[in-house]
């Protein structure tokens, strides 16, 4: 199979843009071939002996099934487009070669990540994508915040990686293999293992049953760090410090999806507790991030929170057992989020040019500084519009299909749940609506209204290569790519492909029709609202002006009211709710992180102190004790010979007395 070759091509592609593009194109073609062969066919599996430790013989190999084939096509596809885009986007950067090198390395590791068949190798690439992401976030290493963000991203990922590693340890311990097929395949080790009397038994090995939950939890922990889920999501917004093309590829489409991918790949390990945890995490994250996105002003930040929110959706879907829907959403999301970022990148890129040309200072990423761009950049606008519609889940887009499926599943699932859990689908709907609103806000603020800079130099449409890549992505945002029936999720071939081995969608008809209709309707209403709020404004675009509009004021007020409410609650230990506010988010998560950092530093200082004064002190004390013994003995050496004699005789006498009279 040609897979090996593309791995090589990718590794070799460390020089220059040409080779990179070429190699990623090769990868794309190869993976397309692979895809067509594997999709809905027999999973393919190749492996070679890697090394043995003790009785474990570890193999490294490639496992191709629907999941990995789909993912690899997705990754290579998105990567190709981003590469294309980057040619133009990064053209003027002085460290271009470094950029291509990193990007190639990333593509290599990401693609390897999705196909490998061994958890340890998976882990290696898992960390490697984290590492390349570190490199790319910190690409502009002269900027302090970029470096900080890179470090933060790496450390956060590392925390998650620990979970992953712990999971690997548990599995290796229990099953003695890390091969994914052997572990999770049909009749694999996991399905054969059973729990009896609180003991988790697999063959001859056994552990307390809690370790099963812990193993799932560990992997889940790894996944939430990578996929930026609450509470380890704080790195992703910061990661926007990297080049936008990178953000689109890594932090929107591929790497962050790796967490979801991992969960999909090792799905059988998760027991009910962890699935429940997934639901909770997913819904909290998606809702929280969506609300945060509502009030952000930085273009990329909005998109970042949106990504977090969408990933939360996927996580939620995973948790409720909608394995297929989650992956479907993953696929569609990859494309439209990538497109969103690329468009945003185009906007920012062009504004940078404009800024240079007009010689004025403003923040190119702040949406308050934009407006009316649809006149200047129609193509970008169109692309962005499609993407946004997909994100909002409007009909005829890919997002509609996938998002709806998740919502439907969640309603299904909720019907079997009681208590607080039954609220999950409503929260999801709410989130979905919030999503519609913030993305509408974004679109209107950026593209409608009038341009908010005084200079009359036109902002230009991005160069053609960028345009081409945008248009390519637009294709993937519309329904036909995924399902011929724009309203029927069930017909989606991707969903079918993924669900083959999981479960069949079964739902009550009424709900199936009602929910999408309702959501769509409200969405449109919200878009309209947003258009009223944001597009009609012109000129300075100050918030006060918005605030005067009573209806919108009301709405805004409510938004902030919630934040204030959380502000109050923040004192009480319900801290996680407080993350609805991005400000608080920074304060708490970052505060915790910084606090942890500081306390670690303090501990470090403390241990240094211990080292220097206590341990060394003891050592030196021993030295001085021996010296003082010497001092005692040498005090007899007075230099007077008669003293010597007296001492000698006294010592002898003492000795005799001790010997014979005691």
């Amino acid at each position, binding site marked *: 199979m040609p897979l090996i070759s593309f791995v090589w091509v990718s590794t070799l592609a460390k020089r220059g843009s040409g080779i990179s593009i070429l190699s990623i194109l090769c990868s794309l073609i190869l993976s397309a071939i692979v895809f067509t062969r594997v999709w809905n066919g027999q999973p393919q599996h190749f492996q070679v*002996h*890697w*090394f*043995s*430790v*003790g*009785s*474990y013989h570890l193999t490294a190999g490639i496992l191709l099934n629907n999941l990995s084939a789909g993912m690899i096509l997705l990754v290579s596809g998105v990567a190709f487009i981003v590469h294309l885009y980057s040619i133009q986007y990064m053209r003027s950067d002085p460290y271009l070669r470094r950029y291509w090198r990193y990007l190639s390395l990333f593509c290599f590791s990401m693609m390897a990540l999705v196909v490998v068949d061994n958890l*340890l190798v998976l*882990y*290696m*690439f*898992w*960390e*490697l994508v984290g*590492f390349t992401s570190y490199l790319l976030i*910190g690409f502009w*290493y*002269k900027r*302090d915040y970029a*470096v*900080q963000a*890179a*470090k933060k991203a*790496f*450390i956060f990922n*590392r*925390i998650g*990686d*620990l979970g992953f*590693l*712990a999971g*690997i*340890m*548990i599995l*290796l*311990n*229990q099953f003695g293999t890390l091969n994914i097929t052997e572990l999770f395949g049909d009749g694999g080790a996991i399905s054969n293992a059973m729990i009896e009397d609180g003991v988790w038994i697999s063959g001859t*090995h*056994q*552990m307390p049953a809690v370790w099963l939950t812990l193993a799932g939890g560990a992997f889940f922990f790894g996944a939430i760090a990578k996929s930026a889920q609450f509470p380890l999501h704080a790195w992703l917004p910061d990661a926007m410090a990297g080049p936008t093309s990178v953000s689109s590829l890594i932090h929107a489409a591929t790497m962050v999806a790796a967490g979801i991918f991992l969960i999909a790949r090792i799905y059988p390990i998760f027991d009910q507790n962890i699935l429940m945890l997934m639901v909770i995490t997913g819904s909290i994250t998606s809702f929280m991030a969506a609300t945060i996105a509502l009030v952000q002003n930085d273009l990329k930040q909005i998109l970042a929170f949106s990504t977090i929110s969408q990933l939360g959706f996927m996580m939620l879907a995973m948790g409720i057992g909608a394995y297929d829907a989650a992956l479907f959403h993953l696929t569609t999301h990859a494309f439209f989020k990538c497109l969103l970022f690329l468009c945003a990148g185009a906007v920012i890129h062009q504004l940078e040019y404009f800024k240079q040309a007009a010689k004025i200072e403003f923040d190119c990423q702040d949406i308050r500084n934009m407006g009316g761009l649809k006149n200047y950049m129609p193509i970008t606008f169109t692309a962005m519009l499609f993407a946004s519609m997909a994100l909002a889940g409007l009909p005829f887009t890919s997002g509609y299909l996938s998002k709806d499926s998740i919502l439907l599943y969640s309603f299904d699932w909720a019907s079997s749940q009681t208590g607080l859990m039954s609220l999950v689908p409503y929260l999801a709907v709410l989130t979905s609506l919030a999503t519609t609103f913030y993305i509408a806000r974004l679109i209107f603020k950026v593209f409608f209204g009038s341009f908010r800079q005084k200079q009359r130099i036109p902002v230009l449409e991005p160069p053609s290569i960028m345009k081409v890549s945008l248009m390519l992505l637009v294709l993937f945002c519309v329904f036909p790519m995924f399902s011929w029936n724009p309203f029927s999720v069930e017909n989606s071939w991707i969903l079918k492909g993924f669900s083959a081995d999981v479960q069949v969608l079964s739902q009550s008809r009424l709900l199936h029709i009602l929910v999408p209709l309702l959501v769509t309707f409200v969405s449109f209403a919200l878009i309209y609202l947003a258009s009223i709020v944001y597009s009609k404004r012109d000129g300075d675009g100050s918030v006060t002006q918005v605030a005067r509009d009573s209806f919108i004021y009301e709405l805004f007020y409510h938004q902030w009211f919630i934040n204030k409410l959380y502000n109050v609650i923040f004192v009480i230990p319900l801290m996680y709710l407080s993350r609805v506010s991005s400000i608080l988010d920074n304060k708490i998560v970052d505060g915790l992180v910084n606090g942890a*950092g500081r306390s*670690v*530093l303090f*501990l*470090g*200082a*403390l*241990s*240094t102190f211990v*080292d220097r004064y206590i*341990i*060394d002190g003891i*050592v030196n004390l021993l030295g001085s004790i021996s010296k003082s013994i010497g001092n005692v003995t040498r005090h007899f050496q007075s230099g007077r010979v008669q003293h010597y004699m007296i001492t000698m005789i006294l010592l002898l006498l003492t000795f005799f007395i001790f010997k014979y009279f005691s």
Partner: protein
Amino acid sequence: MSVLSILVFLPLLAGLVVIMLPTAQQGRYKYIALGATLLQLLLSAFVYINFKTGADFSGVHQRRQFQFVEQTSWINLDLGTLGRLQIDYFMGVDGLSMPFLFLTSLVMFVAVLASWEIKTNLKGYFALFLLLDMAIIGVFVALDFFLFYLFYELMLFPLYFLIGMWGGVRREYAAIKFFLYTLCGSVFMLLIIIGLYFSVTDPLSGSHTFNMIHMMDPANYVGGSIFSPSAGQQLFGISARLLAFIVLFIAFAIKVPIVPLHTWLPDAHVEAPTPVSIILAGILLKIGGYGILRICYSIFPEAAIDSSWCIGLIGVVSIIYGALNALAQTDLKRLIAYSSVSHMGFVLLGFASLTAEGISGANMQMISHGFLSAMLFFLAGVIYNRVHDREIANFRGLSLLMPKFTAFCMVAFFASLGLPGFSAFMGESFSLIGAFTSESVNGLIPRWMAIGGSLGILLSAAYFLWTFQRMFFGELRLMGGEDWRIQLTDVNTREKIALIPLALMATLLGLFPALVFEKMNSSVLELIRLVNP
């Protein structure tokens, strides 16, 4: 004269040549040393390639399964009633020692390249250096305890002088501290060696022996002798064998080093000249680990099992304590030194687990740390040579000035913090896996130790990244101003020659750990069978 002897005595020969050559030719000393180490490297590569693996070559406690064996009677003293003092010149390698030979040779080679910075008293320097080289190789190949001890002690003096004479400002203090610390362990080791000698007889000749392999077989112990496993003698209220284990363990643990016996290390590393730091971190620490496996574990298996909980705990404490200390350091070399403490903690944790993964991982960690710490110290030396400063805070934005140097640093830092794809990851993760598995395999150490140890991975990421960020990123800002800017040139060819093999080895072993694991696997299994049957 087989290849091991040549390997051991080649440096000595070169050292003699250095001594004989008149001082007028001192420019050639380094080339002589370089040649000798290069030759040594080739020889050890030869050993590596010709090393046979498999269950028939596992070694550890089977004399005939060792390879490249040399055994001739060396000292043969008739001691009247004490019997004969039979000391053999007995060398050989098995899977436990062979990888270290290669490591030593490579690190030594790099250290010679780093020795270009030495400007004063070259004759003395290279003579001592080569003597040290010989002693280290000797430690790894010796199978007679006496011979082992001989080489073990022989390492001390060259190191003392190398640190003391060519070191930094506080070199005197560092050298003495190092010397006393290590000697403290080894003097008591001698007592145990003698005790063992009187407890063990050669099954063939019936006389007492220093042969380590005989010491590993309980059948060879004289009934009722002090260290006889069956006699169960007591000393000061605890079992004599346990006491002996502890004494030996401490002796080696000082080398490793463990918390709280580690304070010599930061001082010695910081004050030592770069090549000596490289040797110290790259090889010396491994001798401690190697000794624990080869001697403590093999000769006193039941004591090893009894104390594995403590050893595991020490490992975890070392990992975390070392990492915390590293975080607080402002001197680059000190930081690396403390990171060594932390990294060697994994080794102990792996040992304590007594599982195949744990011990293989620990060995891998040692080898990987050998390459990486050598690289790190070399890199620290590069900077120090140019501007004679190592304060992290005094550098900023170096990546603009020295891109290649930054690239090497990046490899070294990220490899050290356990990025997969590099050897350290394999070592650390398998140590941890071993520690984790231990509870269900042999129940020696609890699982939380593995979890605790994995915290170290996180902390190491923290301090390395922080340092990396502080020194290399951001705008260029140097304390020494324009002078430094001129002095801080990028790495030159010689430095590249030294760094590339190290980086290459770290990557190679990370991608193909089989290169090490396969070679030692059967030995490790054999060791575990021996210790925990």
